[in-house]
């Protein structure tokens, strides 16, 4: 049996460490020639890191383990090394230049011509052939920006084909596509298999993975859990269940401190909330979400990447995301109008972003000024900031949240992730919010600081704050929250008390394909 196996790719004992974090630990991945191989795992499980190792984004010297491709051991120093071998990766965020034509994009970096001159006839003719191959009926001179996401995805694939691809890696290819486009894309991937191209497909849509793949590898916490052949498990439901079990089957430790809080009156309610995509007019990112949070209650929103979690939160927080927003926000049972961020802050809403470096902190400034940034008016008389009071406030939060820094005048950019997160938390706590939205509060934070952050959440709940936690880490959601909403493709697909919920049950709701 083993002799018949022809593996195009073997990754053995891959271990990759970032400062302070072991992202991959002894991962093994074997892909047979000409198959479609699915990779599943929670956010942060290590899928993307593994693919970056494979495609040479992380050079050979930066990880341990070895890669055999097409029968030869390979060492990639950069992406172009892996592309020369026929490995092409298509990222979720498409890497196309919108103002250039389809043909120009396909041959970007691989221009058709000689002596530094581009042969446009050859370029466009070759592009037209590739477009026919992927079933895209467009003129090659059309600017890519005029195409929808689905068609852009096909251009990416045509680009991959132009490089004589042997192994095509697709990262969440259907996350941004509607059903028709997804169907077309999956059909195309099947056709590619017929022509001998091997595909690795990373997706959160488990139904899709189960139906298209020949084999599925599940990754969790940076290690391979198992690789299953789909023909061994003909029942799709059973297969999906097995994948889910592999994705979440982790022991729940005593990470999560107990909380004993009397839950009070309703503080926040969102009714029939719709948010449109800021650029793509026909796309709805949040579709009729309704939810509520009470005083002293910690409510989770569980959703995978692309489900619309952050978009939901940011659209509520002063319309910081999206267009054509509709729906009602109620605070203490009364509808409120929120036109901008300062309105939201005035109404007692605070939002701690998942991406603290981009949205949360001024990294070149000190702790003190980052903490006061959202409440300067509170510190000021007639526009004059009371600098003594400001330092006192910062000292207080440094003490109560245990921010480890030489002084409150230390530059925030030099702190560790956990301490940066505590600075952002301090900033929002100082606005004295009634509703605190925490978006991935423990992302990029080490284990010790995670536990501290959970303790802070408990303390806030005990103070009667309403807390909304957005997370894709299921143990975190279940460990920290009283009640959980599942979000999938912009819709709330379920609500349950955390005590009754299981990781499997939640994952099923989070991967539910709505139509």
């Amino acid at each position, binding site marked *: 049996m083993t002799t018949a196996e022809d593996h195009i790719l073997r990754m053995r004992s891959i271990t990759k460490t970032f400062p302070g974090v072991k992202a991959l630990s002894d991962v093994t991945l074997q892909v047979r020639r000409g198959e479609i191989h699915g990779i599943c795992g929670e956010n942060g499980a290590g899928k993307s890191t593994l693919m970056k190792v494979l495609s040479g984004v992380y050079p050979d010297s930066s990880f341990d383990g070895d890669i055999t491709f097409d029968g030869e051991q390979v060492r990639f120093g950069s992406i172009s090394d892996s592309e020369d071998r026929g490995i092409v990766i298509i990222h979720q965020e498409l890497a196309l230049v919108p103002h250039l034509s389809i043909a120009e994009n396909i041959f970007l970096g691989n221009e058709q011509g000689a002596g530094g001159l581009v042969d446009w006839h050859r370029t466009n003719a070759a592009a037209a052939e590739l477009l026919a191959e992927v079933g895209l009926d467009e003129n090659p001179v059309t600017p890519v920006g005029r195409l929808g996401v689905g068609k852009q995805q096909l251009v990416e694939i045509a680009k991959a084909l132009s490089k004589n691809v042997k192994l095509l890696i697709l990262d969440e290819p259907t996350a941004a596509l509607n059903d028709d486009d997804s169907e077309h894309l999956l059909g195309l991937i099947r056709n590619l298999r017929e022509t001998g191209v091997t595909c690795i497909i990373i997706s959160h849509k488990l139904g899709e993975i189960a139906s298209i793949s020949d084999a599925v590898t599940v990754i969790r916490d940076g290690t391979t859990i198992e690789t299953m052949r789909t023909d061994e498990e003909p029942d799709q439901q059973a297969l999906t269940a097995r994948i889910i079990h592999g994705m979440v089957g982790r022991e729940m430790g005593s990470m999560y401190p107990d909380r004993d809080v009397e839950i009070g009156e309703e503080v926040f309610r969102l009714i029939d909330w719709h948010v449109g995509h800021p650029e793509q007019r026909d796309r709805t990112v949040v579709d009729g979400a309704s939810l509520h949070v009470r005083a002293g209650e910690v409510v989770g929103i569980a959703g995978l990447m692309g489900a619309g979690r952050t978009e939901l939160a940011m659209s509520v*927080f*002063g319309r*910081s995301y999206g267009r054509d927003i509709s729906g009602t926000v109620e605070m203490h049972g009364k509808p409120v109008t929120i036109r*901008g*961020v*300062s309105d*939201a*802050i005035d109404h007692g809403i605070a*939002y701690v*972003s998942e991406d603290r*470096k*981009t*949205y*949360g*902190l*001024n*990294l*070149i*400034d000190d702790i003190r*000024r980052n903490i*006061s*940034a*959202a409440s*300067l*008016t509170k510190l*000021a008389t007639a*526009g*004059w*900031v009371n*600098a*003594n009071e400001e*330092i*006192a406030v910062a*000292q207080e939060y440094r003490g109560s949240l245990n921010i480890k820094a030489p*002084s409150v*005048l230390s*530059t925030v*950019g*030099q702190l560790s992730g956990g301490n940066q997160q505590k600075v952002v938390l301090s*900033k929002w706590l100082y606005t004295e919010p009634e509703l605190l939205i925490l978006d991935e509060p423990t992302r990029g934070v080490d284990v010790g600081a995670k536990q501290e952050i959970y303790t802070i959440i408990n303390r806030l709940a005990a103070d009667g704050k309403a807390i909304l936690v957005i997370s894709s880490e299921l143990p975190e959601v279940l460990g920290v929250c009283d009640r959980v909403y599942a979000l999938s493709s912009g819709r709330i697909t379920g609500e349950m008390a955390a005590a009754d919920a299981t990781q499997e049950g939640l994952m099923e709701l989070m991967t539910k394909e709505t139509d």
Partner: protein
Amino acid sequence: MAGTSNILELLTRNLRQSGIYIAFVFIVLLFTALTGGTLLSPGNLTNLVLQYSYILILAIGMVMIIVAGHIDLSVGSVVALTGAVAAVVTISNGLPWWLGVVAALATGALVGVWQGFWVAVVGIPAFIVSLAGMLIFRGLTYLTLDNVSLSPFPSEYQFIAGGFFNGLLGGPGYDVFTLVLAAAAALAFAYKEWRARSRKIQYRQPVEALWLFVLKVLAVGAVLMAFAWQLANSRGMPFVLLILAALVLIYAFVTQQTVFGRHIYAMGGNLQAAKLSGVKTKRVNFLLFVNMGVLAAVAGIVYSSRMNGAQPGAGEMFELDAIAAAFIGGAAVTGGVGRVQGAIVGGLIMAVMSNGMQIMGIDQSTQSVVRGVVLVLAVAFDVWSKKRAGTAS
């Protein structure tokens, strides 16, 4: 426990801030030596103040614009336009001098409203808006003046840039009033520094050793008094120096101690984070440009007063001197970093270099090359020290 830091630590900890003062002292010493002491003579020091005051006024507004992450290329044209308006009001129409001042300031504010609208409300990059402004306001200057120069201004108007307070308190051959003012300023500086130091101790922040602190205050006091002594031995206290001093104090305060000032730094440091912290970024941007317009008008008044007339070609290249002053003074190209005090010292470095080279009889073309090289080196130093500090990019 709050530690005291030694001199080396003090200098290296914030090389970016202290480096500029060291460079300034070095350049002053260099040109004093090269000019055989003429640079620091009473007559030349007075001249230096009069000749570069308007650039320094522009630099104050410019550093704020740069900290917020913008640039303003139009200020030279605005200097010309506001001077022209003042000239038309007072010279062509014979109205009182103060009406000319008010008209110029109002014009500057209007210019700011125009540019602020395009930058803040419409969202066009300031580089483009002010490049257009550079053309528009230069053209308007020609139209306002009908292509001719106007002069002379009423004597009160001339006093703004050319007037001196001398002999108010008498003095045997030197002006006592100037010395009294300088002494008061030195005392105020000492008091402010002492308060800041004791506050830092109270909040357990590291401070420099006491002897170092005393040395610093004495050094600044000595420089101030020496400077005043030279002025007192020339024509006394220039009125324009008082205007400049007041502006520096006001804007140092506004940028460091007020909500508005903090919002500028927050926006320059991380625009997204500032927005999500409730900073009304449009409003701040708009006000910044209005402020720049008004400061450009002040510079326009001072310049036209000094020239005792308005010329259509006035103020050309002033924007570059003001921008250079801000960058030499430690402002970061990426925004978020920079101080009014730094921009003033940066402007003074440019002023001392130009003035020194003029005294030495070096021709314009060589001066231009030297100034350009210094600008590049100053920003290179900034980039280099940022890399060295290893702060997040």
